[in-house]
């Protein structure tokens, strides 16, 4: 790594740190920033410097400091570049975002739906772009990657869709939660028609997502060696609970999976598919959604979890509004602060304390433009 940094690089890094620090600004730290700003105008600090202002995260700093962090990118829905370059630019932007993080995250997690129609060229393009990441990549499969060739190409590029790994004392599990019962044989669908049926979020001819008995058994065995107070983070493409069946914001055998996770003191489940800020807690299990780099989904018309504070509805005139990527800060107790780094908006953090206090402390900002 080069040690020399130009004036411009230093300036941009300071600026970045400053805005990062502004994320969770409470009143007291706001006063600190204001004082520093006053100092700057009074000539006490160089007016161009952002460094003197570091913002402490009030309540959280006392309770717990994150042990490590990883970044995430999800749901890029790539077509080939000459079909649609907008989604390609979305993924490129996310990769830039993550590569510009300083220090670099421990790894980058990709949340599924890399391709739009599961075609070899789409998946290859995605793999090629993701190779530009500086940090190591961990990847999960989504339904858009799978149902053209039933996962053949995806597995060729990225390996098994179900696996686990350990990182700094936390056990991570990656599931393929988009297993659908055969609906295509009876309807005599071609592979592409099957893919397009699954690709339509509101297409009712497909089956509900499941994890399936085979993976449940695998999960049970994989977790068998862990003590009840283990730190555990599970990734699934669909939310591992039942939110809204018509859009498959749903896992049909979620109860079975939750039963396997029940014995642990606490578990974090992070899922893609919903393209929005989504928060839920069922007993010991804390659920967080991921943002998409392609487009935001509307919120489900019914059954929204109480803990979810919806993000403002996206501005259709702003092409990447409501999209983004983000970071996950893992605390020593295994719970996380989930950062939704929305493009063109202030980032929103759903903190560990918000989840632990059942929505009483550290409440994320309320939307100023709620859904219709």
């Amino acid at each position: 790594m080069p040690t020399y940094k130009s004036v411009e690089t230093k300036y941009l890094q300071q600026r970045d740190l400053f805005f990062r620090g502004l994320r969770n600004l409470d009143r007291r730290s706001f006063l600190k920033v204001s004082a520093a700003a006053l100092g700057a105008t009074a000539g006490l600090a160089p007016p161009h410097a952002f460094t003197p202002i570091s913002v402490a995260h009030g309540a959280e700093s006392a309770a717990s400091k994150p042990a490590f962090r990883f970044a995430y990118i999800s749901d890029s829905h790539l077509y080939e570049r000459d079909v649609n370059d907008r989604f390609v630019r979305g993924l490129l932007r996310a990769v830039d975002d993550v590569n510009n993080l300083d220090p670099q995250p421990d790894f980058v997690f990709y949340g599924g739906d890399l391709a739009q129609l599961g075609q070899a060229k789409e998946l290859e393009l995605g793999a090629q772009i993701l190779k530009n990441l500086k940090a190591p990549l961990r990847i999960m499969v989504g339904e858009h990657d799978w149902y053209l060739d039933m996962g053949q190409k995806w597995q060729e590029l990225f390996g098994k869709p179900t696996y686990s790994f350990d990182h700094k004392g936390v056990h991570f599990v990656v599931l393929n939660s988009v297993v659908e019962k055969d609906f295509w044989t009876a309807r005599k669908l071609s592979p592409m028609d099957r893919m397009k049926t699954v690709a339509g979020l509101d297409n009712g001819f497909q089956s509900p997502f499941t994890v399936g008995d085979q993976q449940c058994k695998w999960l049970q065995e994989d977790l068998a060696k862990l003590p009840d107070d283990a730190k555990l983070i599970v990734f699934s493409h669909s939310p591992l609970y039942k939110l809204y069946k018509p859009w498959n914001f749903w896992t049909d055998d979620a109860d079975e999976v939750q039963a396997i996770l029940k014995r642990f003191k606490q578990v974090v489940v992070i899922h893609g598919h919903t393209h929005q800020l989504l928060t839920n807690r069922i007993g010991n299990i804390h659920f967080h959604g991921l943002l998409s780099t392609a487009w935001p989904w509307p919120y489900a018309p019914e059954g929204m979890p109480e803990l979810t504070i919806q993000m403002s509805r996206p501005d259709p005139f702003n092409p990447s509004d409501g999209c983004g990527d983000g970071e996950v800060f893992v605390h020593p107790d295994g719970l996380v602060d989930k950062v939704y780094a929305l493009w063109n908006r202030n980032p929103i953090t759903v903190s560990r304390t918000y989840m632990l206090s059942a929505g009483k402390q550290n409440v994320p900002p309320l939307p100023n433009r709620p859904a219709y």
Partner: protein
Amino acid sequence: MTITSIRCYTGLAAVGASGLLLAAIFVGCSQETPPPPKEVADVSMDFTPPAVTLSTETVAGMPTTAKTAAKEDAQTVKIGACDGGKPIEVPKDLKGQALADSLMAQWKLHHPEANWVAEEMERHAIKPPADNSHLLKGDQAKGHAYGNYSAQDLLTWTRETEKFVAEGSRIFHSGDDLGSAVAVSCDMCHPHASNTHPETYPKFQTQLGRVALLRDMINWCIENPVRGEKLAPDSPAMRALEAYIQSQRQGVPLNYGKH
């Protein structure tokens, strides 16, 4: 023998040829006149012309394609379709309703999309139009045409309205039909037409700097995220899209101007 059908001619003819009976319907589109049924006299007297009717109800939205009798061979008779579709083969001794059923069944087999309205309604969970069955209850206004409805009337209204809305849904869910240059369709941001809030129009659309109708927003979406050619306000596609979007907000009160 091959018989081509003619425009605006509907008829039933029993044609005997070499002692065979062929039933044929003419509903057609080609310009030739039908051959005169010369040999009718040869037909044995106990023959009643089979009532070969092709029901319209299973072929929603499409003109019924009646068949013209065509060739014969040893065991079966080929009947050509005036829509240019695949000829239908039936056993030559089939008569009457059995013949009609066979024709219909085979036609359906060759036209799996014929039931597309019902399929589209199911696939995309389209909300049905309002139930008007209360109109059939109680006394009908005697002596008035207006307000006097039969069950058949109600069926027609529902069927036609559903077809209109289903057509909108089909376009809404198809990047190709929308003419998208980037393979994007409406449902990719608006599953079940959610977040389209048609009840809030007309309203001042701040980003456009003027009052917009739903169709203005549809066209804005088609031109921008979808990257297609905008639709004429009275074009069939625009009318169908509006119909579908509004149908999905069944029961939501109008609230024009809402932001």
